[in-house]
């Protein structure tokens, strides 16, 4: 699916799509969503007077796991919300999608916004919460505006408000936008940002379920997580679970980027072989071979192509292969990619995006980047690789939030899998990769002088 502008071809997201089924890029409005069976789940819950506990049990049974990165079981998370809390509680949708390689939430929001709204209302019902916010990445302003429109539609149709579909159930939803800070995707930084502050992650515990937005119990889920809920409720947890694998229920939207013929979002069943997903994306660019894949967004360890080709796309399989499914962003690199240069760019990202709050991340990300940069530009020293790994180890697990880990893991995995490339850079002050047109420093030119 490389078309920039809708309408999208039929089945653009793949034949197994649930969330994106029937979505053509133009049919995002309420009536279209209803025509696709939208808000059926909400109507069912209300008509059948399903209890909140039953709803949570259903989500638990579906084995839906958070699509934001950590893969935490969604039903379990919802069950942490205190029932008898006297004050306001909140549902927050994390649409701050900024993990390099990830662009699925944008498609859900712009082409199927009501699925998120419905999912949030259901979450509100399940947790006894009446106010929700959707925190939308600042860089996708048109999507933010469209979401506001969708909210208006839903409100007008009685799907939002103080008396949803005359049932007495209340849920109010607001869109909130970021303005350029990757860290605000981290759930507690997001809450701080929503409170009008810098996005500095909070130390946990306390977790948002007990101390969240404005200090009140809060459930935060990813856009895709919410978008999956209506289908589960409408069609039954069993069916959802069966689509995927045990403990890995349903479908997942993978954002495939990099060196493939057709970058784009593909919604496939969890457990689909990577090779199949790669094929959906048109395979590796013509004439090139697969070198490496980051299977779950830039924060996750990179894996060599061969390893990926043996792996299935679900949480457990990818973990077994040595990485993580993360947000489902698949960054494909072919043999024209210099792994030093690739790591340099990623390290720069974490250095740029560190909030600066805690010491290991603030100081360590800059150190990592500068070392990789030196190696890439031909000023590496033999001891650098060991220092790099050690510095990464000193960040890993020592920070307030997982951005520290996100900065450390690529460094460790790139060096672990492609150490000879780094060593070559250091020793020869030249790039090992010599394929033109790739992401590498011009071959043959001493690194320091290359553009």
């Amino acid at each position, binding site marked *: *699916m*490389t078309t*920039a502008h809708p309408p999208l071809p039929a089945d653009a997201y793949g034949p197994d799509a649930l969330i994106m089924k029937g979505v053509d890029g133009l049919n995002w409005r309420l009536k279209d969503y209803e025509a696709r069976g939208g808000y059926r789940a909400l109507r069912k819950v209300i008509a059948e007077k399903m209890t909140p506990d039953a709803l949570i049990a259903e989500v638990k049974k579906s084995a839906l796991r958070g699509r934001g990165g950590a893969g935490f079981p969604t039903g379990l998370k919802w069950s942490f919300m205190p029932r008898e809390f006297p004050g*306001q509680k909140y549902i927050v949708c994390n649409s701050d*999608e*900024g*993990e*390099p*390689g*990830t*662009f699925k*939430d*944008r498609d859900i929001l712009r082409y199927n916004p009501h699925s998120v709204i419905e999912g949030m209302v259901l979450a509100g019902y399940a947790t006894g919460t009446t106010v929700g*916010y959707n925190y939308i*990445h*600042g*860089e*996708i*302003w*048109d999507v933010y505006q469209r979401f506001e429109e969708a909210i208006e539609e839903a409100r007008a149709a009685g799907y939002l408000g103080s008396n949803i579909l005359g049932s007495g159930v209340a849920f109010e939803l*607001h*869109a*909130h*936008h*970021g*303005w*350029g*800070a*990757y860290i605000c995707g981290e759930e507690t930084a997001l809450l701080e*940002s*929503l*409170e*009008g*502050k*810098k*996005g500095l992650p909070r130390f946990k515990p306390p977790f948002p379920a007990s101390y969240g937005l*404005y200090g009140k119990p809060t459930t935060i889920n990813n856009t895709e997580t919410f978008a999956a809920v209506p289908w589960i409720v409408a069609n039954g947890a069993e069916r959802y679970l069966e689509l995927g694998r045990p403990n890995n229920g349903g479908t997942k939207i993978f*954002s*495939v*980027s*990099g*060196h493939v013929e057709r*970058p*784009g*979002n593909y919604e496939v069943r969890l457990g689909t072989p990577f090779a199949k997903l790669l094929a959906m994306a048109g395979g590796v660019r013509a004439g090139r071979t697969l070198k490496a894949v980051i299977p779950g967004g*830039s924060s996750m360890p990179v894996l060599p192509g061969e390893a990926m080709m043996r792996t299935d796309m679900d949480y457990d399989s990818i973990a077994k292969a040595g990485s993580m499914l993360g947000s489902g*962003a698949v*960054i*494909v*690199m072919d043999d024209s*990619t210099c792994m030093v240069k*690739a790591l340099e*760019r*990623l390290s720069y*990202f974490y250095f*740029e*995006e560190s*909030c600066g709050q805690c010491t290991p991340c603030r100081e360590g990300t800059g150190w990592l980047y500068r070392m990789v940069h030196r190696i890439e530009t031909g000023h590496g020293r033999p001891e650098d690789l060991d220092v790099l790994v050690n510095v990464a180890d000193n960040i890993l697990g020592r920070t307030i939030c997982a951005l520290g880990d996100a900065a450390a893991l690529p460094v460790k995995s790139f060096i672990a899998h492609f150490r000879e490339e780094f060593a070559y850079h250091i020793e020869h002050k030249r790039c090992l990769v010599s394929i033109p047109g790739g*992401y590498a420093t011009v071959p043959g030119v001493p690194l320091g002088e290359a553009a």
Partner: protein
Amino acid sequence: MLSREALDKVDRALTKYPPDQKQSAVLAALVIAQEEKGHLSTEVMDFVAHYLGMPPVAVYEVATFYTMFDCTPAGANKLCVCTNLPCALRGSVAALEHLKQRLGVELNETTPDGKFTLREGECFGACGDAPVMLHNNKRMLSFMTPDRIDQLLAELSK
């Protein structure tokens, strides 16, 4: 300081949050203010601080934390190119080079006529459309190959 229309927008944003949490509207207010004033001067930040009942330095913190705010004037057209890895794998570095060459400026510089400012961005969450660019923060531009960049510059230079 801000126009009535701008304040109406801020007031509308304020309705989203509990009455004792006006600070939640600071991002919205600063975006609205930046759009109206071009950049966030000291006076603008001070004004927003008073409007929302925040310490001015807390507004300053916010204005410098989120990268799409400009505390100093930028050109009439701010072009921000994502050069993060997924985009870089698909030609965004070349796109940036092309822009530099066409505009005759380096990163974070503004053309002498004040028309263009060039920035580098981190992931916009649109990696499938690489190379991607943002024009004045709010307009996302996809598949920015050199010829499409030329078209854009022609449009913006009118």
